[in-house]
């Protein structure tokens, strides 16, 4: 019990990190791309040249001086729609990851901290959920709830929480054994207080890093559901839904190109960021 322990790498603090990891070219790329999209999110009504939902030109016209990225099957400006699409795709993905992390962490922490039948019940439920191929479960939930971005959000949270339940449970189990937790209990800290004040803060780093890496995947999942007709509904300029329109107009490649490139830029930036954070904090990926 009294053996000395090296500080766990999982609880890296800013000061312990390799500073250079923050300034790698990939990280700089991620900051720039995400920064640009942040500007778009906030100021899209002043940047986009046209209304994303109204026809502003001839149907299916290729990129030109007026319509930088052409028009879609209803004559709407693809460039404006792509920019507005950020407001559909990104907040939903962010809400989904926050929901999955919140639910997963709460359940995982309770399972790891209290153990026994509580642990067994929660974790078996997580196992069953994870045995579902994520997209099938999301599709089934979204289909049953009916299409729509809110329902896609619920479906994704329902699919994604077990990952964080497992991660948090593992963290809690190992941190529970540390001396400072014992000390807190010894001076009379209650169970919930110990969990909230002395255990959870120490497991935050790996959870944050994993959430960053997952955000890219969730953006893809939102778009996939929309692409399958189970997420955003027309006339929404959500990126996956725009690509569906592009798939129907196969020989007008500009319709699908713009939302696709927009999505790739965000997911790539998120993956770079997640990769960099993982190296910086020396967190092991769960895969």
């Amino acid at each position: 019990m009294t053996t000395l322990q090296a500080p766990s790498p999982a609880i890296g603090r800013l000061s312990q990190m390799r500073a250079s990891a923050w300034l790698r070219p990939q990280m700089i790329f991620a900051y720039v791309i995400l920064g640009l999209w942040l500007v778009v999110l906030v100021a899209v009504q002043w940047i986009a040249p046209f209304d994303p939902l109204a026809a502003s030109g001839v149907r299916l016209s290729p990129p030109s001086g007026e319509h930088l990225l052409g028009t879609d099957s209803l004559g709407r400006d693809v460039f404006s729609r792509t920019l507005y699409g950020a407001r559909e795709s990104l907040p939903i993905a962010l809400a989904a990851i926050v929901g999955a992390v919140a639910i997963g962490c709460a359940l995982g922490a309770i399972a790891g901290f209290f153990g026994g039948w509580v642990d067994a019940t929660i974790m078996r439920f997580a196992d069953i959920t994870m045995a579902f191929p994520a997209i099938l479960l999301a599709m089934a939930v979204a289909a049953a709830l009916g299409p729509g971005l809110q329902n896609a959000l619920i479906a994704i949270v329902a699919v994604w929480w077990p990952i964080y339940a497992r991660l948090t449970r593992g963290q809690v189990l190992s941190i529970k054994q540390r001396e400072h937790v014992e000390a807190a209990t010894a001076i009379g800290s209650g169970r919930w207080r110990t969990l909230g004040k002395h255990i959870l803060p120490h497991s935050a780093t790996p959870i944050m890093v994993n959430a960053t890496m997952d955000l890219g995947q969730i953006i893809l999942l939102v778009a996939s559901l929309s692409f399958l007709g189970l997420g955003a509904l027309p006339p929404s300029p959500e990126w996956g839904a725009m690509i569906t329109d592009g798939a129907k107009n196969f020989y007008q490649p500009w319709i699908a190109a713009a939302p696709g490139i927009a999505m790739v830029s965000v997911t790539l930036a998120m993956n770079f960021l997640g990769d960099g954070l993982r190296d910086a904090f020396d967190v092991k990926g769960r895969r």
Partner: protein
Amino acid sequence: MPRFLLKRIAIMPLLLLGVVTIAFVISRLLPANPIASIVGQRNLGNEVIVAAAEKKWGLDQPIIVQYFNYIGNLFTGDLGTSFVTKSPVLSDLADRLPATLELALVALVIGAVGGIVLGVISAARKDRIPDQLSRLFALVGSSLPIFWTGLLFLFVFYAQLGIAPGPGRLSARVIPPSHVTGLYTVDALLAGNPALFWDAFTHLLLPAFIMGWGLMGTISRLVRASMLDELGADYVRTVRAKGVSEGQLLRHHVLRNSLTPVVTVLGFAFGALLMSAVLVETIFSWNGIGSYAVEATRALDYPAINGVSLLGGAVFLIANLVTDVTYAVVDPRVRLS
């Protein structure tokens, strides 16, 4: 080890029961009404037809009775009857499975070979340009929306360059080989028809590459990390001291020891492939399990959705079990308990 195996196998039916139960609950407790997909939109107002259909499909029974009927039938191998195709779900799945299996296997080979090659390049040239490039390539693979990449590849390689075949498993007017395994490439070879084999094989390449590309990131990252670990081991110094060339060292000593962890991602890989199959099959008009799942969800065809969920869950659990066992067999230091 046998005890561990028995325990794992014993718990599998329970997990599958859980999967089926969740699928069932989702399908019955949520607002959507499947009756429209059975009788068709225009008969929805006709009470006689609706009541007859509800009776025929057992939808007039209390949910709990429906549930136990469904579970009871599962034990006899009856997964119910699809609302849409009106044929048993089990035979639908059996018809569609080979197409997905063929695609997934080729994708797995592409992903594994590509991932190992990239990982080796990365580790051998750590932090230099080849390492950066191969990591970038792998990361791009896991950042791409697979349905978009599918469209892009079809547009570029099929429509513009004309060097790849279009969507589908075979070219138009080509007759599939007689059914032996259901894998067109294998069946074509068994039938002694190389032209047919080539046609089926080339149709596999684009969709399988897109699916495999996503896997390369996971696998190459693992191979890179584990090779770097191995390169720091004592025996590497000994081998170098003997004057063995770097290439030989990597190929004969380090790589062989570094591949064990790759086995651990097999289970994950199968799940991921099944997931991408849903999207890739939609884009490439591939008549497999993935497109079956999409058709079923669109039509609220619950017996079919439950059937696909059960199949997906079973594949995932078996893949995980095989992974754990293989891992213990390949690496004797691993103890299963």
